[in-house]
C-alpha cells in the first residue's frame, strides 16, 4: 500500500537555539502545528506584515489523504493567501450531491445553484497537496520561520509573554512569544499544557475510510447511500479526489474489531462489492470512531487555540479543516491589530465569541448527521426509517433526510457587528461573510468582488454603490466603488441583487471579509462608529 505523496522536510538548526536558556529569543507570534490551519495562519500573518515562527514536531507531510473537501469559503481565503488557483487547478471541483436509499436516488442537491462566483462550492483535494502548496507559499514570503522537528514540550504563561520549551534533534531550547497560537490538532499537546478540558460526545459506530486508486467514470459529485445494496443496513459515501483516487467511507458496526477490519484483505471484498469489480489499489485505509467536542474557551491568556486543537467534529459535512481555516481567517487580523496596538487585547475575545458560535453550530450539524446515520435507539431508528421511506415521494421528508449538511460559514452574532438601522430585504447581514459576485473593470475585463476585496489590501474595506459624491473613508479603510463611471461596474446587476443595494448603499467589510455594518445612506459619522465597534474600541 502506498502512503500517498509524502514530502520530506529537513530539520535545520536556528540561531534562536544558541540563546541562553535564561534569555530566550523573543517573537511576537509563535504558531504551533504546520497543518492546513497553522500554515494558513502563518501565511495570513506574514502577508499582513507580521513575522511569525511556525513550529512542527514532524518533518514530513502526506500520511494519508485525511481532509479532502475544501469549501468555497476556504478557497476564497486561500485565494487571498495566494494559493487559491493552485488548489482549484489540482483539486476536483464539485457542486452536486446525491442521496441514495437502497438502490434508488432520493434526491440531489446543488450547493452552488447560481453563477457569478469565482470559487466553486467545493473542491476535493488530498490534505497533503494542500499542505505542500501552503509550504511552498510559506517559502515565497519573508517573515515566516518554519521549523520542522521542533516539538513543544512545556509551556509557561507569564503576564507579558509565553515561554515555550522546544525539543529538537539537537536538544531543547527555550522560545518566548507575546502570543502562542496552538494549531496542533485534535490531540493537542498545548491544550493539555494549559490544562483545558475537551468534552463532548463520542460516537460508538465505527467508520472505515479507504482511498482507492482506480480509473472510473463516476461523475464528480458527492454520493451518499443509506442502506445500499452493497453494504446493507449501513451507510456509505463516495468522493472523487485528484490522481484517480476515490474516497470511500463505510459505516461499520460498533462492535467491529478495528484490527481485523483495517486489514486490506478484509477491506477489499467490501469495496469490490460496492464498485462491482476488483480492479483497484489501496492508497490509504483508516478506521475511525468520531467525536464531537470543543474546548470551553479558545483563548487561554496568551495562548489561543485554533482548528482541531480547539474543536473536533465528525467528518460528515466537511466541517473540520474548513472550520479550522475559518478560525485562522478570523484570528489573523485581530492578532495583528492587538500586536501593533491599534486594537485593545480584548479584541481577541471576539475570536472566542465568534468561533465558539461557529464550533457549536458545526458540532450541532455534524452530530445530527452522525445521529441520523447511526440512530442510537429503536425510536430514533424508526423515525429515520419513516423519513427515508416518505422521502421517496414527499418533499418535506427529503429535507429531513440527513446525509451530511455541508460546511457553510457561520453568521456571527458578534459584538463587532453594528445592527442594521435600515430596512433591508435580504442582502448580506452583519456578521455574515462576503458573498461573491461578478464585476467588470473599466476596460471591460471580467473580475469578481472577491478579487477586488483582495486587491484592496485585505483591510477594512468600504464597498460603495456609487451615487453622487463619494464619502471620504476613515484612514486605512480601503474603498471599492461600484458604478458605471467607477473603476468597477456591476454589469450583470448581481452584486446589487446579492447585497440588496440601491445606489448610495455601502457595506463595511472586515479584514476577514465579514460584514461589519451596512447602510442604505451612509454618513461618515455612522461609518466611524461602526469601525470603532468592529475594531473592538467600543464593546457592545
Amino acid at each position, binding site marked *: 500500500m502506498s502512503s500517498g505523496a509524502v514530502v520530506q522536510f529537513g530539520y535545520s538548526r536556528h540561531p534562536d537555539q544558541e540563546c541562553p536558556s535564561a534569555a530566550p529569543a523573543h517573537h511576537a507570534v509563535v504558531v504551533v502545528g504546520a497543518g492546513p490551519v497553522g500554515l494558513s495562519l502563518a501565511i495570513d500573518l506574514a502577508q499582513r506584515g507580521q513575522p511569525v515562527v511556525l513550529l512542527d514536531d514532524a518533518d514530513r507531510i502526506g500520511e494519508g489523504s485525511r481532509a479532502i473537501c475544501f469549501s468555497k469559503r476556504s478557497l476564497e481565503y486561500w485565494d487571498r493567501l495566494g494559493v487559491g488557483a493552485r488548489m482549484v487547478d489540482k483539486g476536483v471541483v464539485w457542486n452536486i450531491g446525491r442521496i441514495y*436509499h*437502497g*438502490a*434508488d436516488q432520493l434526491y440531489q442537491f446543488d450547493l452552488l445553484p447560481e453563477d457569478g462566483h469565482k470559487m466553486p462550492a467545493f473542491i476535493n483535494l488530498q490534505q497533503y497537496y494542500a499542505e505542500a502548496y501552503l509550504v511552498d507559499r510559506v517559502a515565497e514570503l519573508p517573515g515566516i520561520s518554519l521549523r520542522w522537528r521542533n516539538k513543544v514540550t512545556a509551556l509557561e504563561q507569564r503576564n507579558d509573554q509565553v515561554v515555550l520549551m522546544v525539543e529538537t534533534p539537537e536538544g531543547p531550547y527555550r522560545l518566548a512569544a507575546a502570543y502562542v497560537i496552538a494549531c496542533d490538532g485534535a490531540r493537542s499537546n498545548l491544550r493539555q499544557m494549559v490544562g483545558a478540558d475537551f468534552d463532548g460526545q463520542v460516537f460508538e*459506530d465505527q467508520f472505515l475510510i479507504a482511498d482507492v486508486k482506480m480509473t472510473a467514470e463516476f461523475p464528480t459529485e458527492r454520493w451518499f447511500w*443509506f*442502506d445500499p445494496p452493497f453494504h*446493507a*443496513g*449501513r*451507510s456509505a459515501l463516495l468522493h472523487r479526489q485528484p490522481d484517480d483516487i476515490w474516497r470511500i467511507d463505510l*459505516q461499520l*458496526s460498533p462492535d467491529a474489531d478495528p484490527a481485523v477490519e483495517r486489514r486490506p484483505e478484509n477491506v477489499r471484498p467490501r469495496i469490490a462489492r460496492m464498485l462491482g469489480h476488483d480492479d483497484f489499489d489501496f492508497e490509504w485505509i483508516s478506521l475511525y470512531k468520531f467525536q464531537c467536542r470543543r474546548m470551553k474557551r479558545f483563548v487561554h491568556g496568551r495562548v489561543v487555540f485554533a482548528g482541531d486543537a480547539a474543536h473536533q467534529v465528525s467528518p460528515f459535512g466537511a466541517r473540520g479543516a474548513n472550520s479550522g481555516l475559518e478560525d485562522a481567517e478570523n484570528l489573523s487580523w485581530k492578532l495583528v491589530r492587538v500586536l501593533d496596538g491599534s486594537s485593545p487585547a480584548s479584541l481577541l475575545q471576539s475570536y472566542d465569541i465568534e468561533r465558539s458560535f461557529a464550533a457549536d453550530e458545526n458540532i450541532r*450539524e455534524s452530530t*445530527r448527521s452522525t*445521529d*441520523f*446515520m*447511526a*440512530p*442510537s*435507539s*429503536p*425510536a*430514533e*431508528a*424508526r*423515525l*429515520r*426509517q*419513516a*423519513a*427515508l*421511506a*416518505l422521502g*421517496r*415521494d*414527499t*418533499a*418535506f*421528508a*427529503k*429535507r*429531513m433526510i*440527513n446525509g451530511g*449538511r455541508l460546511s457553510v460559514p457561520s453568521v456571527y452574532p458578534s459584538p463587532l457587528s453594528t445592527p442594521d438601522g435600515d430596512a433591508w430585504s435580504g442582502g448580506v447581514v452583519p456578521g455574515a461573510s462576503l458573498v461573491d459576485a461578478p464585476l467588470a473593470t473599466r476596460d471591460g475585463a471580467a473580475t469578481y468582488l472577491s478579487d477586488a476585496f483582495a486587491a484592496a489590501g485585505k483591510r477594512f474595506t468600504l464597498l460603495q454603490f456609487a451615487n453622487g459624491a463619494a464619502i471620504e473613508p476613515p484612514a486605512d479603510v480601503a474603498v471599492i466603488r461600484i458604478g458605471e463611471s467607477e473603476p468597477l461596474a456591476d454589469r450583470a446587476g448581481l452584486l446589487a441583487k446579492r447585497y440588496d443595494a440601491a445606489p448610495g448603499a455601502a457595506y463595511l467589510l472586515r479584514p476577514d471579509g465579514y460584514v461589519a455594518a451596512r447602510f442604505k445612506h451612509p454618513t461618515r459619522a455612522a461609518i466611524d462608529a461602526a469601525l470603532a465597534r468592529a475594531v473592538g474600541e467600543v464593546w457592545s
Partner: protein
Amino acid sequence: MTLSTASNFAKPDDAFRLVVEAHRGLSDETSAVLDAALVLVLANHIGDIDVLREAIAVAKRALTDPAAPAAGAA
C-alpha cells in the same frame, strides 16, 4: 384543504431532532405511546378529517418501502 407534503419548516433538521429528542430515554413501549399521543394531538390540530385520511394514506406507503432495512443501524 388538502394535505401539504411540501417542506414547511424553515429548518427541517430542527423539527426532526425535536421529535427524536422527545423519545430520548424512553423504553420502546413508552416511545410507542408517545408517538400515538403525538399523532392524536397533531391530528386534532389539523382538524380536517379529509386531510387526516390523506395523511394516513401517505404514511402507509412508508410501510411498503422496498429499501427498508430489516433492522435499523441502531
